[in-house]
């Protein structure tokens, strides 16, 4: 694990405003995430898990504090610069799979490579390879609505890692899956973490998954209540 953090937040705040009503979601979060970590952020509903992921991923902007990605502050970036940062540095896995329905599994996986401007032959080759590594190559030509939820989430993971991003952010990736499929998915993500060195940071409130992480951040009322390293040994 490198000493300089991949992501660092400093007194990170986010307050939602609805008319004159202000709802604080994050109240000064200081956090460091390092390369090759496999970290979960847990906490009760409304504790700010999703908000934290959105801010770290550049999907939303904080109302206070700063986020540094690889040492660079994100607050000054324009919308299109943030889009470029997401494209090249961050992979996303969402709770509701969020695959593009008119694209096949292969095309969904290759879509982000297309956004990166990679030529067709290379993106197809890379997408097929990652689908093979995740054991879902046989579904390459299927549309998302033809495969199960677990398989769809595997495709979402494939899409998130195919660009080899600095970090994969996953927001409740197992929320819609049954226990066995959830454990399979977490094991898959863990394998990618261990074998490919992919950095994962995912939100969950499923306690069954927590013994598979090597770091657990617990949020309560928008603050880091506990930051626990469960496995002192760095991932292979």
């Amino acid at each position, binding site marked *: 694990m490198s000493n300089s953090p991949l992501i660092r937040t400093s007194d990170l705040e986010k307050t939602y405003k609805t008319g004159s009503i202000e709802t604080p979601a994050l109240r000064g979060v200081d956090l460091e995430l390092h390369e090759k970590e496999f970290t979960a952020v847990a906490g009760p509903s409304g504790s700010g898990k999703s908000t934290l992921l*959105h801010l770290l*991923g550049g*999907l*939303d902007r904080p109302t206070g504090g700063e986020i540094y990605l690889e040492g660079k502050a994100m607050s000054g970036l324009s*919308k*299109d610069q943030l*889009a*470029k*940062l*997401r*494209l*090249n540095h*961050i992979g*996303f896995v*969402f709770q*509701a799979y*969020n695959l*593009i*329905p*008119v*694209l096949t599994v292969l*095309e969904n996986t290759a*879509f*982000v490579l297309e*956004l*990166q401007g990679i030529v067709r032959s290379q993106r197809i080759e890379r997408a097929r390879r990652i689908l093979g590594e995740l054991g879902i190559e046989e579904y390459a030509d299927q549309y998302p609505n033809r495969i199960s939820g677990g398989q769809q989430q595997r495709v979402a993971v494939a*899409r998130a890692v195919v660009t080899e991003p600095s970090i994969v952010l996953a927001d409740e990736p197992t929320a819609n899956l049954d226990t066995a499929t959830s454990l399979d998915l977490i094991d898959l993500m863990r394998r990618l973490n261990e074998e490919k060195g992919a950095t994962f940071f995912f939100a969950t409130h499923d306690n069954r998954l927590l013994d598979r992480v090597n770091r657990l951040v617990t949020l309560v009322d928008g603050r880091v209540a506990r930051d626990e390293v469960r496995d002192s040994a760095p991932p292979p």
Partner: protein
Amino acid sequence: MKAAIRHLKRNKGRSLLTLLAVLIPVYTLVFMFGFASANLRDMFETATNIESGHFQVREIQERATGGTLQLIDDVAPVLGALDDTDGIAWRTIRLDVPALASAGARSETVYVQGVEPETVARITPIETLIVEGEYLTAGSNGAVIGVELAQTLDLTIGGEIILLGAHPEAAMGILKVPVVGIFDAPDASMGRSLIQVDLASARTLVRRPTAATAVVVMVEGVTGPWDVHKIDAVTADLSTRLPAGFEIADWRELAPMVLSYMNVMRPALMIMAATFFVLGALVVVNTLYLSVMERTRELGLIRALGSSRLRVMGMIMTEAGILAFAGAFYGALAGVAVILIVEAFGGVPLPARFAEVFRSLGLSGVIHLRAELGDVVLSAVAMAAVALFAALFPAWRAAQFEPVEAMRYVE
């Protein structure tokens, strides 16, 4: 492109509606332009072939009275100038003489047109409009008259007609000729007043053996008023060669009704086209906007994955472009197909009452359609461009989605 086509297939009803929003205006415009263009061609042909020619060379009208053309005693210098000018398809000498026509106890004011049957017959529809008897032949002693005049004077083929020339620049001459043909004029007023006789016969009405009033000229390659530049080129060339004292009057001056029709029809068509464009654009905006709003989550996801706003706009514009160009193409195709089918059957005959109105305007009693390449392409390209322009708003709206808000929108 592939994804855009799949999106369009996914929502077939809405895609079809957008397609029709482009297709129907293009089809209608092609049809309307085809109708106007064919009418214009009919009017132009009637006016130029029977009456005015593409242009006439005559003396500068200094002595003319009552709309009667001045007499020319010698047309040879004019014919020489025409022989030296390129682009002339056909020319003929004509002598127009106001006259009184009598048959038995009946009489009618007419104008007698002295023509050269051997040249005039090459194109003039009068020959094709003969419904009884036959057309004039060179040197023949006879007259062809309209159906209406035949009724007024109670004349049939072989009946004798006495013409009393009344040209203000000449002594009165008398001509007694048999009716050899009766024609059904496209214009009823023409049928009541026009009598054609051989040029030599007409000259006896003014008692001048070489007299003429004009040389009527047709220009090569002119199919309608849209070819006016060809006529202008020839007249410009000819005007440098004409002897002093002569002038050129083209169809715009001689057949002002055609020009009036053009001046009214074109703006009217443009207004109709604009209306269709606006209606089509509104449907395109509406359907595409709904499509974008339905896909808020998906478009938000695409933005979340790192797509630029320009690319999202491009995705929507690609879908709009496919529909716009397909609609324009098939609309134009349908319009041209209908025109060709209608013309293959010889046009659509009008009911008698409407046919009479049309004929009074110098049109045939049959609705003809004509596919002008320029009009077809213009209709299709303009509507496609309007549809694409209309699509800019929903595309821009799609590009403004904030990833988180867009994904939360449906969650």
